[in-house]
Each structure stands twice: as structure tokens, then as C-alpha cells.
């Protein structure tokens, strides 16, 4: 099932754990803040990215 993945840039602390898990879906901008490259993706893949974030900056919502 496809879901929408979003990240709260104010919450992101730039640990890069999400990028390490799925560099094709998430990247860091020049200030070290995560942003989502692929916002609609499989739920399992979104969950893996979200779970990797140490401070829970990602949200997953239905399309």
C-alpha cells in the first residue's frame, strides 16, 4: 500500500539516520535538514525510514 511520508524540518536534528536507511527516498539539504525525495512510497519502506529517525520527525499518512 502506498502512503505519504513527510518530515518536520523544525524537528529534524540532522543525524542522517534516515538517509543511511534509504538514500533514494530521503536526502539532507545544505543546512543538514532532511527532506523527502519520494513522498509517496510503500508503507513498509516509509516505516523503515520513519523508525530510523531518533526523534520521530517523520509522519506517515494515507494517500
Amino acid at each position, binding site marked *: 500500500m502506498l502512503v505519504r511520508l513527510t518530515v518536520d524540518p*523544525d524537528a529534524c*536534528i*540532522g*543525524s*542522517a*539516520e534516515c*538517509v*543511511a*536507511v534509504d*538514500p533514494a527516498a530521503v*536526502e*539532507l539539504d*545544505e*543546512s*543538514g535538514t532532511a527532506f523527502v525525495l519520494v513522498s509517496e512510497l510503500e508503507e513498509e519502506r516509509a516505516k523503515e525510514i520513519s523508525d530510523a529517525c*531518533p*526523534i520521530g520527525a517523520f509522519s506517515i499518512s494515507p494517500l
Partner: protein
Amino acid sequence: MSGSVVVVGNGVSGFACAARLADQGAAVTMIGPGLPHDRPPLSKRSLRTGRLPLLADAEQLEAKGIEHVDGVVTACDLARRRLVVSLTAGGTLDVEAPSLVWATGLRYPRPPIPGFERAEENATAVGLASLTQRLTVPGRRVVVVGAGLIGTETAATLAHEHDVTLVDMVDRPLARLLPRVSEAARTTLDSLHVRFLGSCSIDSASIDVHGAVLHTSTHGDIDCDVVVSAAGFRSSLPPELTGVDPRALTLPADEQLRVIGQDHLWACGDCVSFPHPRWGRIGIPHWDHALWSGRHVADAILGSSTPYVREPYFFSDIGSLRVQQVGFADAAVEWSDEDGLGVGRDEGGSAACVLLLNAPSRLRDARALVAAGSPRSPATTHA
């Protein structure tokens, strides 16, 4: 006032511990000045906006069930398990602490230079508010004193809107890190037009609300509008805890992060050292360890016997330069470039530390390499 667990410190580690305890249904009291917040220099946004990076507001604390005492501990009686707290609102409060977690991190005092006590700083909530107030108009001439991680990040961030000079006693920025990191940082600072003055010796400072002059014996007088102190760190531990060594930065703990010799006292974050199975007793003064050690202490208090094992990891953004380091650099005796990773190997040839420059997607590879302690690959290029 009594509670089953008292957490002293409201930074990343203290809050992570308190939140984990509360999530598991434990009664928890967290003591610290103001609302829990991340350390200001770790957030570039904070420096740009002046907003403190809060970890939770009062409503969220209440919803979690964390009792917050707004103040600082001024006396600690470990034998009687009691604390005295000087409250921000005035007065004092006695707190019973049958189980106690110490998570006060490090202090970042201004260096003892005559006149330097009026320099700005951004290591505290109060300092951040004062500094950003001084920098509301672009184009200010700012001198950042101290080219460690905090000072270098601060200089790079401020350079977007201000005329920044970074000074240090040593001859290169980030001198405590690997030479290749220093070189990359220096290149980035140059691209941001940050002047770096190395081997600089400041004799005294004249600072008031109108401007400042740093009197140096190496570079003459340095005129500027704002001086930011980012030099050095000290222990935050009270004498009741440090015992014979008042300058101790960390409390020695066992593998559950329980302070040795104190059955009801735990420590986490910057102010704990623990026995790492590969590196021996180490402390890790970085964000990642602050978070995970805080959570680990909560689990230990709730009955977990799992040992704390976390490879040292830090990350830093200096302008567009992203630095990440996994492992224990002190154990590396030889460095080489291997498949885009800077790998430091120990005397046995195993990966002890991996450095990533602008390669955040390789973090997993770096962790795997250090975890495996993999043998030296046959073809390596000496760095």
C-alpha cells in the same frame, strides 16, 4: 516532594530518560532550568531565528506525566537521597530522590581573559537569546573565539548574514579532529568568507554594548561589533559527586550506566563514562550518545540488564560541509581511503573509525565496517 525517579538535567539526555520512564508508566521528576531543550549550538535554525530548540513544552510535559521542577540543584546528599533545588521563580525546594539520574552535560564557561566576561555565548538558552538580539541587523562584524565544533559551526552559520572572523590559539580549525577534517573545514570557511586567525593569543578584551576590541599579542587589536565565546568546556558535576577530582568531566558507570559505588545513581549523556567492550572506558560528548544513553538509563532503572554498547558517532554541519564520524579515532593508527570512506584502522588492522565527508548515505556502511572490525582490504591508498 517525592517521586520514584528524579532526573537532574533537561537537555537531550535528561529529557530522553524522563520521557522513556514516563512512557513506561514510571513516576518521574525532571529538574532543570526552563523547558527541556536541545543545546543551542546544535541547531543552526536557533542561531538564525533566536528560537530555542524545545524538546517539549509545558503541555507536552503534563501530557506525558513528567513533573518538571524549574530550577537547578544546589546541594546533593547522596546518603540521605535528598536534593536541594534553587527554583527559577525564587526560593528553594527539598526533593526526595530514591532513584537519581544525573544528566547535566558539560559547561561552556568563557575563558579567563580579562574583560572577556562580557562576551556573548550561545551554549545556553539565556546566551542564545542575548546573542541573537545583538545580531538582528545584518552585516555585523562578529568575532567567534574558539574554533572547535561549536565555534566553527557558529562562525559558518553567522557568515550567511555577517562579517565573521574565527580565532583560536591553535593554527587550524577543528584541531582536535583529524587533519583532513580541519582542511575541509578551512576550505569551507574560506568559501563563506570567514577569516580564520590561528595561533592567536588574546591578552584582554574591551567589550560594551557599542562594540568590542580584542587585544592580542599576535594580531594586534581586533575591532568588532560582537564577540562570541566558544572556547573550551568544563565539568558540570557538583563536588558531592566528583569526590577527589573536582575537575572530572564524567561519572564512571558500569555497563548499565549505574554510577560505580552508588546503587541508586545513574548517569547519561556528556557526564558519564562507561566500559565499551572494544575501546575500554570512554565518554562520548555528542548528541547521539546523549539520546541513547538517556533511554538506556530509563530501561536499566525499569529492570533491563542489557549492557550499554553504542559506537561513538557525531555529526556536524559547517556551512555546506557535512562531517560524520563513527567509531573511536584515538584507536586508529593508520588512515586510508577505501571506497569513498575515510577508514582508520587499529594496530591489528581492523576498522576502528570511519570518517564521512559529505556522504550521509554511507552512514550504514560506516557503522557496519566498524562493527565488523573488518580486516584490512588488500588494496588501499594511503591518505
